[in-house]
């Protein structure tokens, strides 16, 4: 069991539903989705994407221009919402820069910069253009290095890159570092931006839908790729505070295949069970489950098997991938924040685009957003390589 609860003192979220966390809340309540026909860069694919408006227009501060790429522009755009940087400054004043850790997830970092550089190679020599900076754009640590410089955070640092569970696992790592006394607060989050690598890569694996994705639907046929950035500031819960807290986390490995989950959901079930154990909660204490729910045939079937094994008849559950697209390395933080919004504002998000739930899957998926008091949420994030993470959020135990 977690010895103390870890409060989310502030959070911010930017995705295809809009800039700032309230854009997501309004869209979820107004039944307004964020997917559009693919119009990213020079991609010629018959698919739908969750693109964030305005990323192209963001300019990095002069002293940090070396980090310039779509992923870091998206990070900056998100950090500027919801007075989030003010919350970080106040935290830095209280604890000192060296006592704040930073743990961010990403799956593809700034790979789009490399894609552009390869298109601009010198025809004679094949040399990459002089502006290309591998270290500060493509490498996985780039976004963490950029944010720690931007916000002057000097504590323990790492970029987690475990595909689609990346920005869920950052909560677990931050929690352990804080428990070990290595920092007093932590900035966690995730940033993943659109790239031709993921669009054409998932297409090559025949995992991309030609329609807006339909999680849990009998006609589901693949994902819609999205981009997002989200951040949360974690501090130990203080007596009397009403902040939402991380109550538990669970992590596991499928040990099955790289690109396909275990058909019986063994790893997924284990991560949910470990999260329940860590939070000292039972299945009946969970009010809502935010599924990984990517809308591929095998992913949803595997998650369903796991859900059945852990919960029998599950509580209210839904997938929000139809609203935002699958934001890959940012999916964990996106859905962690949506979980907190469900608790704060009292609603269960629906499952956009899904009309005919698959009869072979658990009954009762929430299709339309509805008002409902939500005390405790479990959020699932499962990734390529069989990397699973489940998080539980709620009001702290009193």
């Amino acid at each position, binding site marked *: 069991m977690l010895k103390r609860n870890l409060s989310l003192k502030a959070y911010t979220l930017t995705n295809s539903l809009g800039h700032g966390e309230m854009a997501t809340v309004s869209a979820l309540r107004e039944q307004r989705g964020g997917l559009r026909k693919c119009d990213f860069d020079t991609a010629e694919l018959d698919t739908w994407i969750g693109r964030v408006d305005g990323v192209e227009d963001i300019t990095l501060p002069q002293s940090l221009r070396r980090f310039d790429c779509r992923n870091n522009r998206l990070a900056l755009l998100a950090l500027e919402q919801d007075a989030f940087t003010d919350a970080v400054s106040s935290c830095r004043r209280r604890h000192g820069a060296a006592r704040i850790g930073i743990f961010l997830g990403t799956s593809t970092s700034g790979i789009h910069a490399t*894609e552009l550089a390869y298109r601009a190679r010198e025809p004679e020599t094949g040399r990459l253009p002089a502006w290309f900076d591998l270290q500060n754009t493509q*490498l996985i640590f780039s976004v963490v290095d950029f944010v720690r410089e931007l916000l002057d955070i000097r504590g323990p*640092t790492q970029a*987690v890159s475990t595909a689609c569970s990346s920005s869920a696992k950052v909560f677990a790592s931050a929690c*352990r570092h804080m428990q070990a006394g290595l920092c007093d607060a932590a900035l966690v989050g995730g940033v993943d931006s659109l790239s031709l690598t993921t669009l054409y890569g998932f297409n090559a*694996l025949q995992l991309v839908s030609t329609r807006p994705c339909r999680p849990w639907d009998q006609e589901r046929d693949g994902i819609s790729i999205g981009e997002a950035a989200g951040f949360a500031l974690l501090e130990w819960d203080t007596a009397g505070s009403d902040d939402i807290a991380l109550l538990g986390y669970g992590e596991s490995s499928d*040990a099955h295949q790289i690109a396909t989950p275990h058909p019986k959901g063994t790893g997924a079930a284990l991560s949910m069970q470990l999260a329940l154990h860590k939070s000292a909660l039972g299945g009946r204490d969970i009010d809502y489950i935010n599924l990984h729910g990517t809308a591929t045939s095998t992913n949803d079937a595997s998650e369903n098997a796991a859900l059945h094994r852990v919960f029998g008849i599950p509580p209210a559950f839904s997938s929000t991938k139809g609203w935002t697209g699958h934001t890959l390395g940012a999916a964990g933080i996106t859905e962690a924040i949506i979980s907190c919004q469900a608790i704060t504002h009292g609603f269960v998000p629906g499952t956009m685009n899904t009309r005919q739930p698959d009869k072979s899957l658990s009954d009762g998926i929430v299709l339309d957003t509805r008002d409902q008091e939500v005390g405790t949420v479990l959020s699932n994030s499962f990734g390529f390589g069989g990397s699973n993470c489940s998080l539980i959020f709620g009001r702290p135990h009193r």
Partner: protein
Amino acid sequence: MNSVYLQAVGVVAPGLPDWPACRDVLCGRAVYKPAPIARFSPTSLPVNERRRMTPTIRLALQAATEAMQSGTPDPATVATVFATCNGDLEISDRICDALSLHERPVSPTDFHNSVHNAPAGYWTIGSQCHRPSTSLSAGVSTVAAGLLEAVTQAWCDDHPVELIVYDQPAPPVLISRHTNTTPFAAALLIQRRQVAESLAELRVAPVRRSVTRGLQSAELEAIRLNNPAAQVLLLLELLAMNTVADCVLPCPDSGGLLVEYSPC
């Protein structure tokens, strides 16, 4: 400052086929002779997975396998932390090259291997391990970040943890002053409690100073300065000497991670 116990290690680099060879060079008993790394093929993996492995994945898994070769604890019960600065640049090179062509023929196998946690995926399949596994990166502080992640997992979640650090050279088009030219990987098996097989007690703490001295072997010092993963040689030198001593692993902003070493 809490401690953990080091139980086994693995190393692979040109001329260093395993830990005993590396140890002998580190403590001056043998002269370093560079030699190509022999092709590693883990028999624990299904044929399909074995065929799909890249040189980067082979490198990481070779070190991981050596540290787990005693079979105690059972590899299926050991959590893993994979840490690399550069990831698999050969894969991103092939994908970005394909994307620059008219038809954009991205290979499904390349994309499947492009995730940063591909080595972790192959490792957990081969060892049938359902325990947590993470894959991280932290620039110059990749080894320090990996060690802190492994140590905090051992403390907080109380399972044995294997840390695997690795960096493979960049393909020619991506070589710059920031990329390494020598491959290197190492693995450290650690436990929260002392066991019969424990080699040493390690205590770690962040400090406000950077690396103060290099390795005694000039050849291995050159590898350490070339490859971000090879910073772990500072710690492995303590194991080779096996006396009470300490080292500082690099962190950003001229900070470091102090590792205090005591033999068991």
